[in-house]
């Protein structure tokens, strides 16, 4: 087993079945202390199952796992005192206020009354919930709820924080709020294991990305290396008049730095790889408009999770 001090989360050969459905088929995982690890995979890949096993909520059928230096199966109480967990649903009390929620959870984390109160105030402050502190949680936006959820997981300033799809179902603003909160936690040295099926989320937050599917690790790398392997954003122009194709090819070629744009004559589409997507998009749009080309659609195409899997596994992901 890997050294305790170096890695906060270590899993070896985890297996788990529900009936005859195999959710995990020998998952290996190692998260270095103080880093953010993104567990990326499509729905049904086994992300939630992994996190629930690591957070002592579910017992694995086989394999072993250590979190914060303790075996999750043999010493769950010790693990529970060192982790924070936010599940797929924001598990906070709807009827209580944010402040009441944090005080309640702090008490259940066995802080004495005075410390519980103080901790609640600190967390309201650091998660920007002070103003809404006395409102009932059911009036909260998705982003606020999630932030409260995160705050509740941070009561003991845990060594390891598990986040299961922390931004699923949030609007862009809510996502940004949660991302900022997660970055704040990472900045003070919390080890974070987060699951997501958004490529950009894993990219923005993680030091390393573990790609999983069908209950197994497919690959693990830094976001930069993964993106290099997959290819970055592509700019695509779709025309309404085939006569404008040469014009579009010329315009797109100017922003792809030497890589020839590809043309799809059937769809009247021209596309090529770009590095600074937004600048390229405005440049090309302006050029085409000045040339009077008949543009039907213009936009950036990010590689989808499916494409990532296609490149990594060489097969279409079911």
């Amino acid at each position, binding site marked *: 087993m890997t050294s305790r001090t170096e890695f906060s989360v270590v899993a070896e050969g985890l297996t788990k079945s529900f009936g005859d459905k195999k959710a995990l088929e020998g998952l290996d995982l190692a998260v270095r202390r103080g880093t953010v690890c993104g567990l990326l995979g499509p729905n049904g890949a086994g992300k939630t199952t992994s996190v*629930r096993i690591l*957070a*002592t*909520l*579910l*017992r694995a059928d086989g394999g072993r796992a250590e979190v914060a230096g303790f075996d999750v199966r043999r010493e769950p*109480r010790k693990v*529970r*005192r060192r*982790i924070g*967990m*936010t*599940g*797929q*649903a*924001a*598990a*906070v*009390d*709807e*009827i*209580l206020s944010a402040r*009441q929620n944090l005080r*309640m*959870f702090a*008490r*259940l*984390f*066995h*802080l*004495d009354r005075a*410390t519980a109160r103080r*901790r609640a105030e*600190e967390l309201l402050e*650091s998660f920007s919930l002070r103003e809404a502190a006395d409102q*009932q949680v059911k009036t909260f936006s998705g982003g606020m709820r999630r932030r409260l959820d995160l705050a*509740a997981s*941070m*009561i*003991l*300033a845990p060594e390891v924080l598990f986040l299961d799809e922390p931004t699923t179902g949030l609007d862009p603003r809510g996502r940004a709020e949660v991302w900022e909160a997660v970055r*704040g*936690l990472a*900045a*003070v*040295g*919390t080890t974070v294991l987060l699951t997501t099926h958004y490529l950009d989320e894993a990219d923005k937050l993680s030091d390393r990305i573990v790609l999983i599917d069908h209950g197994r690790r497919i690959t693990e790398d830094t976001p930069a290396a993964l993106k290099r392997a997959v290819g970055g954003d592509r700019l695509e122009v779709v025309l309404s008049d085939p006569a404008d194709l040469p014009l579009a090819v010329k315009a797109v070629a100017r922003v792809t730095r030497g890589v020839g744009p590809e043309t799809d004559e059937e769809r009247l589409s021209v596309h090529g790889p770009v590095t600074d997507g937004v600048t390229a998009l405005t440049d090309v749009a302006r050029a085409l408009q000045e040339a009077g080309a008949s543009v039907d659609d213009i936009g950036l195409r990010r590689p989808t999770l499916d494409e990532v899997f296609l490149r990594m596994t060489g097969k279409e992901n079911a």
Partner: protein
Amino acid sequence: MNAAPIAIDAEGPERRAYWALIDCGTIVRRDLTHLVKQPSLIAWQLGFPIVSVLLFVYVFGSAMDVGEGLDYKDFAMPGMFAMTMAFGFMNTAMGVVIEKERGVIDRFRSMPMAPSAVVAGRGVSDVLQAGVDLAVMASIALVIGWRSDGSLPETLTAFALLLWLRFALIWVGVWIGLVTPNQEAAGNLFAVAFPFGMVSSVFTPPSLMPDWLGAIAMWNPVSSTANAIRELFGNPLPTGGSWVEENAMLLAFAWPLALTLVFLPLAVRRYQRLAR
């Protein structure tokens, strides 16, 4: 963001017992806060029994002859108390299912709190709430002219038996809450619970029902509690001489005990099996 580790209490066995109590208290406090913040919940819950009382006493009561000069009010009120306690298990089940669905139970399970507190806390607050329910119903009963003709100890024993039934059904409720997949399914419970409450001596003496139905009604735990408290309130139901009815007092104690002995372990086991 403050990352300094927070000092937490060391965990010897006696500290564990202490914290198990505190945790239970924290959960009860939360449940009571819920109640205070949503007083309409009590009204909603009592709506059905109260409307039933008024309907049966004022609309059907005049047409009902429950026998031997027994006033319908004196017959129906204890029945209504018992039924309210019996239907209480749906609140328990619904509460558990909502917490399970929202992931609150998972959050608790991922924390170092005492696992027993989740279930014990709910038990305590449900009994407290049942006490409030009974107080409200008894006040309404007094307003419409119902009186207990039993002595004070008898009357208090009657209310204790009612809470005893409610206590037993907490474990049925927790178990159902844990095995039901979601709120909708739990909502359908009402369809099951309704006949369970009706096929009893709550509204009609079983002796007036067809034989087979009467037999089921007599053996219904709700009937035993209803009949026992009718006795304690000084208005016993004339019995057909059957053993079940003669021994209502014994059964009002024994039925809930049996339910607890079966469903408490089932609920605990099911809770532990959430890790499967």
